[in-house]
């Protein structure tokens, strides 16, 4: 039934070399990090394993819908999970979709959710080594994101300073599911370091929570709801960072919101402005209307792109956000992958297409 779409031939202007801002590399097996971990933590991993804030070991409590949340066609013939095989990633995504630069977001076993802080630090460090050795060295089109154990900001600062020396690391990956909202002071050392080394913060939904339900009214029943909370959760983070005055304090800080869509952001800006107008005496450190900080400091990766019933309505949204603030992302190899050929159901001008698929990301990440 997909035949008419799949057979649609590429127009020359669609063969733009693109920057994909969300590609997930995965470990071939739980042992993949062994070469990068000290013996003490290898033994710990084997004996105790992960200690995260959820009821089940090694599986999500909202089971995904298709092939554990992966594209069914992305399982490597060589075995191992989707995203663990570079040749398949090249053949299936980087080559045919003309990916000039791919930004890695390494979610699994990165210590973001680990409660044992020393273990979390060791895992983050190992995942960053692993990205370099197994992905960046063999595939020069890829760039890495510095994975940090965000609830231990002092460790984050050390890892950021170490990794920033390698130009392959182009952003700092922080889990949005923190113990406290990301604007709170305990996280400021991370922003100070990010500003100092000139790298944006990349926020991508992570699996296990930071100790709080996915909504202000408790846990959702269905994955449909849990998936929706990727968007509403990010609203709280944007509001926290702005109302805490982060961008007055760190005026060069840039944040990219990944895998949470973007069409919700104009409404959030209006809502924050309206509330700020009434309540600004509570937050005197917020000098300007919140929407101005939103406009200046946040970028948005496009996947999963919103699909209005009338596709043209997306143009209104992007007009409000700014055509310079969206960066294309595919989410390869996850089930809700956005194919760059069919992501936009509206006609983009050449300038708009180039901006979203390439130039905005190059400017944001200084690629």
């Amino acid at each position, binding site marked *: 039934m997909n035949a008419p779409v799949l057979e649609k031939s590429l127009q020359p202007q669609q063969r733009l070399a693109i920057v994909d801002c969300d590609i997930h590399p995965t470990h071939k097996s739980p042992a993949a990090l062994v070469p990068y971990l000290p013996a003490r933590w290898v033994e710990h991993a084997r004996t105790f394993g992960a200690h995260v804030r959820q009821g089940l070991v090694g599986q999500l409590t909202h089971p995904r*819908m298709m092939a554990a949340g992966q594209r069914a066609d992305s399982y490597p013939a060589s075995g191992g999970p989707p995203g663990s095989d570079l040749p398949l990633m090249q053949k299936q995504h980087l080559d045919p979709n003309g990916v000039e630069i791919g930004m890695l977001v390494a979610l699994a076993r990165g210590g973001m959710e680990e409660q044992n802080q020393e273990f979390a630090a060791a895992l983050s460090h190992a995942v960053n080594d692993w990205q370099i050795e197994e992905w960046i060295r063999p595939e020069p089109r890829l760039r890495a994101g510095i994975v940090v154990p965000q609830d231990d900001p002092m460790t984050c600062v050390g890892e950021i300073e170490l990794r920033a020396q390698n130009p392959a690391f182009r952003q700092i990956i922080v889990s*949005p*599911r*923190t*113990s*406290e*909202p*990301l604007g*709170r002071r305990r996280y400021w050392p991370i922003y100070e370091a990010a500003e100092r080394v000139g790298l944006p913060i990349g926020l991508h939904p992570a699996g296990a929570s*930071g*100790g*709080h*339900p*996915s*909504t*202000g*009214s*408790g*846990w*959702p*029943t*269905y*994955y*449909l*709801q849990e*998936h*929706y*909370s990727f*968007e*509403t*959760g990010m*609203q*709280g*983070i944007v*509001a*926290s960072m702005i*109302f*805490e005055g982060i961008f007055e304090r760190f005026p060069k800080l840039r944040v990219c919101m990944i895998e949470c869509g973007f*069409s*919700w952001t*104009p*409404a*959030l800006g*209006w*809502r*924050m402005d*309206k*509330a*700020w107008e*009434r*309540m600004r*005496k*509570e937050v005197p450190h917020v000098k300007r209307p919140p929407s101005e900080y939103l406009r200046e400091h946040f970028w948005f990766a496009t996947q999963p792109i*919103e*699909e*209005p*019933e009338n596709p043209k*309505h997306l143009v209104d949204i992007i007009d409000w956000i700014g055509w310079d603030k969206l960066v294309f992302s595919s989410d390869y190899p996850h*089930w*809700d992958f956005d194919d760059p050929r069919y992501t936009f159901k509206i006609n983009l001008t050449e300038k708009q297409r180039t901006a979203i698929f390439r130039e905005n990301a190059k400017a944001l990440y200084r690629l």
Partner: protein
Amino acid sequence: MKVPHGAIDCDIHPAVPDTRALLPYLDDYWRDQFVNRHIDRSAFTLMSYPPNSPLSCRPDWRPEQGLPGSDFAALKRDALDGFGTRYSICNVFHGAIALFNEDMAAALCAAVNDWTAKELLDRDPRLRASILVPLQSPALAAKEIERVAKDPRFVQVLMPVMADHLIGGRAYWPIYEAAEKHRLPVAVHAGSTFRHAPTYSGWTSYQVEDYVANGAAFENMLVSFIAEGVFQKYPSLKLVCTESGVTWLPTLLWRVNKDWRGVRAEVPWIDRLPSDIVRERVRFTLQPLDVPKADAGVFLKTMEHIGSDRVFLFSTDYPHWHFDGEEVLPDGLPEDSLRRLLTENALETYPRLRGDDTLAGNPRPHDGALQ
């Protein structure tokens, strides 16, 4: 723009002046409890609406003494005569809903409802009200609906958007069964009982963040209603998002439609596009209207993105401070949409406002206090 006379205001907030005023509406046991434990000296003010906060009361509507909304003469002057409304629906959003003791919450909700009938509805024929329910116990909430629904001046059920659990969940269905039976829409109002952090990354620093977070809370609540199949289970139930804001709605429709296409096997009872379900079954009160002051076109665009002018209900949210002077309506609304917003949509939403309430044995409106 200014509102023409005869509108139906679907969200005003009279306040119980103090807890002592509720003592006559409590039974002997609870009156003793309240007096002996000095509970009657507590105000039961919700953390979501601190009385002196700028959002909680417009400066020129603030009474010289007492809680915002507690002065009946001022309410009559500012909210009813001031906007020339035909009906105004009183949402007495009382702190009873935040208690942990279910029985105490139920007794207090019942007292608030009886106080509302006597002290508000009996005093002005333009007033209608919502039934405050103890959400802590869906069984007791359903019982309260059964008790109060006999008075046709109560036109809907009132619940907070953030509580112990997402309210689409099956545990809450007895409430919806009772509401549907009595042709009462369910009004979900902004505010939290703070059983959980208002954001998924934890507890906020500032009250302004909490207020902003209500928008996301309404999204999650609505997705809960859709995903759980409440609209299929109760085919004539209507949901009224009250003080919710509405500019977040287009994104919700687009995202839920797309998510549903991807994961519909998980929720097979959803038998059509979620956006169609929302347009048919969910309504939104006007204030606060989260659009830039300088750009009236944004509301019109939002309406176009939603794809309907039937989902909006007029509200002032008196005495909360969302607008100044008489600038309660967005500019530039087409005549038809304005008429729908001001009266028709409300009459469609609330069977009990149409005066065609045919439930046997119901007293006519204005026949006196609830027995």
